[in-house]
């Protein structure tokens, strides 16, 4: 800031003025230097404050010195006005000093005013106030000063003029006349005496001249009587004071007048002061041809008269000088007065400037600070310069900005925390396998997580903001789900937990659904949170586990008695074959045969069970899936040539890591199923498709086996993988159950549905590598480890 003026300032505080000082914000500390980072800001600010204080004191000192100089200058100037000799040597210097002071002040003021005008034009904050204050102060000061100046000038001129009144001049002239006539009277009197004396000397030519001179001198009161001959020759002299000096030679003037026969009288000024009256009269020649003689008589003028004459003379001279100097005096005094006025005026204006600046600077700071705050810079701190109301205001402002910045920090922190929480929640929501849908009060979707979409087979995450109906369009699962949910929502239940069964094309989906109503204002529902889990697989797993148990029991409990039954039946047959005859033999034969056959069938069934319930013991090898598919299909093609087996295999399919025998079992079972379904059907065909898929960073081998048979019965679609669920007249119902088991053991996924054109379709996804399996199918791992535990 201002400076820069003294403001300026202000150059390193928080972004105050810039301006005004344009002070740079302190938050730009370089992060390179750790020390600067730690102490830089505080130290910088402290140094800036010290510098500012020093500058302020410096400015005060400068102003003080200037004011002192100004006073000295003024004093000296006034002293020069009275013509005192003590200063006379310094007069030029005093004048020069004052002139320099004047020029300096003028320069400073010009600079300041230019600056102010520039600020005013730029609409800089505070410039208007400053200008107004300056104008007011200036008018307040200039008015009285000018008044004093002009009246002083007027009185000065009047005073000087009053000296030259006609009366004064006349009085002086009269005084002069009086003294002159008084002296003239005395002079003519003395001249008369001299002439008388000269006549007396003429009459009595032969008297003793010296004695006579002394006598006459005493008689007439002359101080000196001399008779001069030709060429200033002294014939006789008598002086009051005996001095070695010869009598004063008569001047040419005297001699000239005497020679013309005229007596002479004059008033002379003595070199040492005082007056004498010098008279001269010619003496008649003593005889024809004798030298002409002159009597010169000098009379003293009484001291009193001399003094008065001196006074009159001095007054006259002084008056004359005054008259002569009248105008120059006026001008000179006028100039002096003007100089003093200008000095005072400029100093006053400068003072006005200074005080206006002092008054306005905090306001400027405040304006700049307010602007900075309005722009969002809450770190603005204003310099506290005064302790008055303005200082209080500045203090309050600083307090306010401090609170504001603290509040903002707090807000930012809270916002950050909320944001973190939200991100956390989003991560959790995204991570859980439970579907979560949050609804607004008007049943628009607020948030839905990925699992919700996955479970319902739709992208609900993108459907945020849609109504439920919009989200459900074209999504059969979602539609069913919403129908079920709305039923409960409409019933006004705030909190419920129900199992919902949905019919998907790939089978039944069982969801465990819980809903909580969020209470908004006025106890009205402010929204709903629906949490649901796809428990189809869970139920399946429970069922699987139950069946496994059953199978094991069966294997254990049933298989054991079967062998003795079979053995007993055979033994019975051998024993009684020869003993009975005829019809009995046939009955026996048939009965035992039936027993053995049925036991055999039972054994097979129990074996199949035990196969299903068998604990997994996989031998993982790398093999070519396509090759395996080709091998198996060739086998079945040979078995039933009426059925066409079409392969559509992906050449990119890599070798997969899996248990080769079991994967072969999968295809065996699937082919067997299809062939059985196509039995007795014309144009039966089995399509096998393999594809390499990529899902969430893991590569999956997708195999689809479909036929154009009757397909799954619709009502059984959800249970096709359950054991003993079969639509075939014969068959254990374990084929698909075993396929599913194997697929799950490999961490894969299996779906069964009907083709739109008719016929069953089974889709299998197997991870290509062991690592991928671990990632995709934790459930399989779990089931395997469970099985191991059980086996142990």
């Amino acid at each position, binding site marked *: 800031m201002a400076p820069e003026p003294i403001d300026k300032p202000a150059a390193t505080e928080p972004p105050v003025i810039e301006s005004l000082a344009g002070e740079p914000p302190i938050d730009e500390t370089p992060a390179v230097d750790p020390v600067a980072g730690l102490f830089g800001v505080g130290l910088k600010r402290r140094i800036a404050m010290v510098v500012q204080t020093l500058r302020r004191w410096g400015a005060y000192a400068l102003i003080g010195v200037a004011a002192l100089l100004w006073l000295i200058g003024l004093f000296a100037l006034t002293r020069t006005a009275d013509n005192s000799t003590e200063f006379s040597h310094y*007069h030029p210097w005093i004048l020069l000093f004052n002139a320099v002071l004047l020029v300096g002040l003028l320069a400073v003021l010009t600079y300041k005013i230019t600056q102010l005008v520039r600020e005013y034009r730029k609409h800089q904050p505070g410039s208007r106030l400053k200008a107004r204050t300056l104008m007011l102060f200036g008018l307040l000061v200039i008015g009285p000063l000018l008044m004093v100046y002009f009246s002083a000038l007027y009185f000065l001129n009047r005073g000087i003029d009053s000296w030259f009144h006609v009366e004064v001049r006349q009085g002086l002239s009269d005084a002069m006349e009086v003294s002159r006539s008084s002296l003239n009277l005395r002079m003519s009197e003395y001249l008369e005496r001299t002439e008388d004396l000269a006549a007396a000397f003429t009459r009595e030519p032969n008297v003793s001249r010296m004695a006579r001179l002394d006598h006459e001198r005493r008689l007439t009161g002359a101080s000196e009587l001399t008779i001069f001959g030709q060429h200033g020759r002294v014939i006789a002299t008598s002086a009051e004071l005996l001095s070695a000096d010869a009598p004063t030679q008569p001047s040419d*003037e005297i001699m000239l007048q005497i020679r013309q026969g005229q007596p002479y009288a004059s008033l002379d000024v003595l*070199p040492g002061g005082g007056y004498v009256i010098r008279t001269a009269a010619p003496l008649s020649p003593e005889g024809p041809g004798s030298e002409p003689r002159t009597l010169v008589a000098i009379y003293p003028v009484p001291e009193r008269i001399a003094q008065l004459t001196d006074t009159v*003379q001095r007054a006259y001279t002084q008056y004359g000088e005054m*008259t002569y100097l009248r105008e120059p005096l006026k001008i*000179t005094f006028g100039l002096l007065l003007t100089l003093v006025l200008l000095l005072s005026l400029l100093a006053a204006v400068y003072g006005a400037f200074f005080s206006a600046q002092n008054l306005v600077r905090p306001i400027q700071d405040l304006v700049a600070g307010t602007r900075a705050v309005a722009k969002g810079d809450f770190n603005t701190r204003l310099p506290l310069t005064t302790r008055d109301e303005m200082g209080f205001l500045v203090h309050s402002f600083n307090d306010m900005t401090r609170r504001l910045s603290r509040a903002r920090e707090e807000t930012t922190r809270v916002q950050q925390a909320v944001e973190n929480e939200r991100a956390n929640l989003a991560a959790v929501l995204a991570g859980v396998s439970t579907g979560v849908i949050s609804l607004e009060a008007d049943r628009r979707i607020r948030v839905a997580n990925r699992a919700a979409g996955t479970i319902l087979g739709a992208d609900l995450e993108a459907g945020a903001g849609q109504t439920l109906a919009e989200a459900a369009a074209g999504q059969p699962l979602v539609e069913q789900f919403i129908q079920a949910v709305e039923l409960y929502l409409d019933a006004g239940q705030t909190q419920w937990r129900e199992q919902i069964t949905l019919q998907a094309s790939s089978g039944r989906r069982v969801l465990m659904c819980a809903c909580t109503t969020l209470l908004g204002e006025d106890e009205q529902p402010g929204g709903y949170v629906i949490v649901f889990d796809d428990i189809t697989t869970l139920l399946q797993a429970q069922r699987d586990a139950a069946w496994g148990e059953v199978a094991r029991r069966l294997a254990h409990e049933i298989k054991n008695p079967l062998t003795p039954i079979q053995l007993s039946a055979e033994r019975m047959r051998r024993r009684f074959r020869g003993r009975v005859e005829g019809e009995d033999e046939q009955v026996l034969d048939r009965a035992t045969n039936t027993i053995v056959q049925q036991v055999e069938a039972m054994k097979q069934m129990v074996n199949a069970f035990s196969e299903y319930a068998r604990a997994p013991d996989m031998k993982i090898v790398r093999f070519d899936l396509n090759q395996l598919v080709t091998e198996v299909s060739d086998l079945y093609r040979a078995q039933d040539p009426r059925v066409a087996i079409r392969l559509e295999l992906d050449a990119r399919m890599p070798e997969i890591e899996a248990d080769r025998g079991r994967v072969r079992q999968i295809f065996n079972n699937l082919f067997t199923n299809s062939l059985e379904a196509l039995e007795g059907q014309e144009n039966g065909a089995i399509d096998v498709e393999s594809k390499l898929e990529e899902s969430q960073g893991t590569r999956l081998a997708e195999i689809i086996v479909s036929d154009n048979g009757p397909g799954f019965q619709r009502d059984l679609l959800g249970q096709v993988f359950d054991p003993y669920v079969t639509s075939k007249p014969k068959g254990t119902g374990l084929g698909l159950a075993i396929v599913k088991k194997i697929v799950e053991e490999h961490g894969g996924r299996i779906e069964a549905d009907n083709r739109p054109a008719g016929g069953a379709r089974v889709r299998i996804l197997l991870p290509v590598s062991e690592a991928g399996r671990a990632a995709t199918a934790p459930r399989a791992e779990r089931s395997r480890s469970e099985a191991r535990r059980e086996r142990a």
Partner: protein
Amino acid sequence: MAVAAIGAYADPLTGTFELRNAAIEHDDHSYLLSAQVQLPVDDSVRDALKQGLPLRLELEVEVSRPRRFWPDATLATATEQYELTYHAVTDRFRVDKGSDGASAAPANGDATTYSDLDSALAALGKIDRLPIVEQAAVDDARRYNVNVRATVSVGDLPATLKLLMFWREDWKRSTEWYAWPLSQ
């Protein structure tokens, strides 16, 4: 105001102002300068004198030795101040030629009175055997110059007024420097 003042006091010291009949002689001790200063006195100066203002004549004498490639060396300087005043009561002009240059107080020194101004002026301007340099100080083998300048001023202004009246040159006037070789 200033213009009016200048107009009212226009150039009282105009006219010929020069040194005439200058001669340098020497007696047993010193070199002596004699000359006559023609003073530029016209009616306005006469009026000023009649009003009581003094007429001052200042004579600056300088004996210097010219040097090559170097400022001249000054051997001796002298300043003489003569004053002519009008004594109104006695109606006489008084010429004060106090040889004491520093203070030209009219009270001491030789003063002569004259009844008419012209003889007083003649007496004021007459420089009669003014000692300028002692013979002992002069080296016969060298050449010297005598420089003389006369300054006439009317009125006795206070120092400040003198300084402030820089714009009025008419109360004071100087001749140029006259220079003669010092004949030995």
